[in-house]
């Protein structure tokens, strides 16, 4: 394993950041401090972190409506994310985007996207630009199992196939498109096989194992950077929470949820780190405590930030 201890602890920290950020978001939601809706990523942390760990800071990602995890993994500041969720002037989008639309250009994050498959052609275009310019950058396009049934997914994979674009299409198959189980919505058992139709290798990975995700994505990123084209990766994972805030999860059993919770990606990674003597329990605990502090700081920053300014409401429509 060529990963340094430092990098693995960074990965652990990012996973904990995502988990704790979202638990805080859930808490603030219940207190009516967060407006609208939001889609929590809890349970899927290994996929965002494993994937983004295989990228450079200036590589691109596009994200989904369940985007907090991707943003944090790519390096977004939690305080500016929290400020955006609270609708503040200091938020990434100055209160115009909210949970579903966080963008952080400084870390190559071209944006969460409120539309299923919305980011897929956009990611394809970013990769096309990299190919034309020869800038060596790779794009990871995160999307969900539901987006695999949108027309744009098929159009874009076809383009990436014919033009050998430097892109990794990363499907987070969390088994449900809102309430609809994948087996009812998708004619194939594994979405990864759809790569074959476009001459793109399809790979399946355990989405709860951060090191497995990292290795798989790293190989795909390497292919892309070498000019060998796109890869479709299907990360099999599970969202612990409902689709969004109002979902009572009537379409699945608590037993099923419990089974997946037993494979908590953070606990799994913690055991791996300790079993292989990479980190002690104390070291990991210290990271947990440090993240607790960061979350509190993010919250304090956000709640003390000025509200979005109504007098600027028409700003940024046009450049």
């Amino acid at each position, binding site marked *: 394993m060529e990963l340094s201890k430092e990098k693995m602890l960074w990965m652990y920290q990012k996973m904990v950041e995502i988990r704790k950020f979202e638990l805080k978001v859930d808490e603030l939601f219940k207190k009516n401090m967060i407006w609208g809706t939001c889609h929590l990523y809890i349970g899927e942390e290994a996929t965002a972190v494993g994937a983004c760990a295989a990228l450079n800071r200036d590589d691109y990602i596009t994200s989904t409506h369940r985007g907090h995890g991707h943003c944090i993994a790519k390096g977004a500041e939690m305080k500016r994310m929290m400020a955006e969720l609270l609708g503040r002037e200091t938020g990434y*989008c100055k209160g115009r985007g909210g949970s579903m639309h966080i963008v*952080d250009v400084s870390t190559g994050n071209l*944006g969460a996207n409120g*539309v299923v498959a919305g980011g897929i*052609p956009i990611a394809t*275009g*970013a990769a096309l630009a990299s190919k034309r310019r020869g800038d060596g950058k790779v794009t990871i396009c995160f999307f969900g199992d539901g987006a695999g049934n949108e027309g*744009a997914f098929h159009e874009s994979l076809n383009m990436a196939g014919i033009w050998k674009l430097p892109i990794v299409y990363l499907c987070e198959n969390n088994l449900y498109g809102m309430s609809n189980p994948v087996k009812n919505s998708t004619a194939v058992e594994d979405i990864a096989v759809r790569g074959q139709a476009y001459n793109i290798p399809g790979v399946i990975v355990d989405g709860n194992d951060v090191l497995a995700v990292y290795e798989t994505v790293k190989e795909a990123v390497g292919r892309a950077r070498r000019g060998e084209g796109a890869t479709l990766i299907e990360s099999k994972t599970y969202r612990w929470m409902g689709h969004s805030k109002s979902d009572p999860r009537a379409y699945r059993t608590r037993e099923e949820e419990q089974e997946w919770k037993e494979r908590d990606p953070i606990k799994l990674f913690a055991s791996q780190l300790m079993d292989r003597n990479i980190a002690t329990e104390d070291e990991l605990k210290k990271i947990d405590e440090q993240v607790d502090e960061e979350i509190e700081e993010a919250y304090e920053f956000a709640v003390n930030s000025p509200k979005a300014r109504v007098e600027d409401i028409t700003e940024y429509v*046009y450049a």
Partner: protein
Amino acid sequence: MSEKTYIDALAEALREEFDRDENVFMMGEDIGIYGGAFGVTKGMYPKYKDKLLDTPISEASIVGAGVGCALVGMRPIVEIMFSDFMMDAMEWIVNQAAKLRYMTGGQLKVPMVIRAPMGCGTGAAAQHSQSLPALFAHIPGLKVVMPATPYDVKGMLKAAVRDDNPVIFFEHKLLYWTKGDVPEGDYTVPIGKAAVKREGKDITIIAGSIMVPRSMEAAEKLKEYGIDAEVIDIRSLVPMDVETIVESVSKTGKAIIVEDDNKNNGWGSEVVSKLIESDAFDYLDEPIKRLAGKDIPIPYAPELERAAVPQIEDIIEGVKEIFDKR
């Protein structure tokens, strides 16, 4: 300055912008060796192989990929073979390109041009013939233009390519082979400025796209009836040059709007409300008249197709009716 067709002026703008900025390129269906469905890029491929990207027939992802290219600093021009086919790409035009700058608090910009041939008169019927500028003009974040002359199409395409916003660039198919004076070399025509194409004192004809040359001819014939019409080419629906229209109508006291789109909720109604909201209201001495297409899909049979949108004689009649009422 030499006389060129609208198509040649367009091609000249493309070549000059390709040469000027390495970030400019065009993607679309059959624009390479084939030269584009209307021949805009005919003969360009050998020299501009790298600038003309032939795509699969995938409008949603052609536009979506254009957005992605624009977000990371390129300046893509996307050709949609017939503007009707933009319906396949509405998500990436309306929900992505138009909104990304605003939604991200100004972090992103989308410097993209979508070139879209529109309009009827070629017998291609309803799915290849409609005129949709008003549909896009309603969406905040898009700019919508429809140049009517070879001079304007060259200058406005250059302005559109250099604009940091998504610009929907409507080219009327019947204008492609029209001729006009086009200067050699670089110039731009600003987006958002109307043009007074003919000065007159009795009535203002506000027209767009193919209706501009038709209105110009109508204006010449109206002289026989002692009517001296001023013709304004609106050129750009978003932003709209309200000032020039208001100034003209305040001078003439009468207005007729001539559109290529169908009438219901067309851009003419926007012009009417802007006039009514403005100082021009005090100067109007007749109700404003609107001439537009019938509210039907464009039909096939030549007689039906011709009757679907205003022709020169309809404009003459429309203007005369205003004066005959007195």
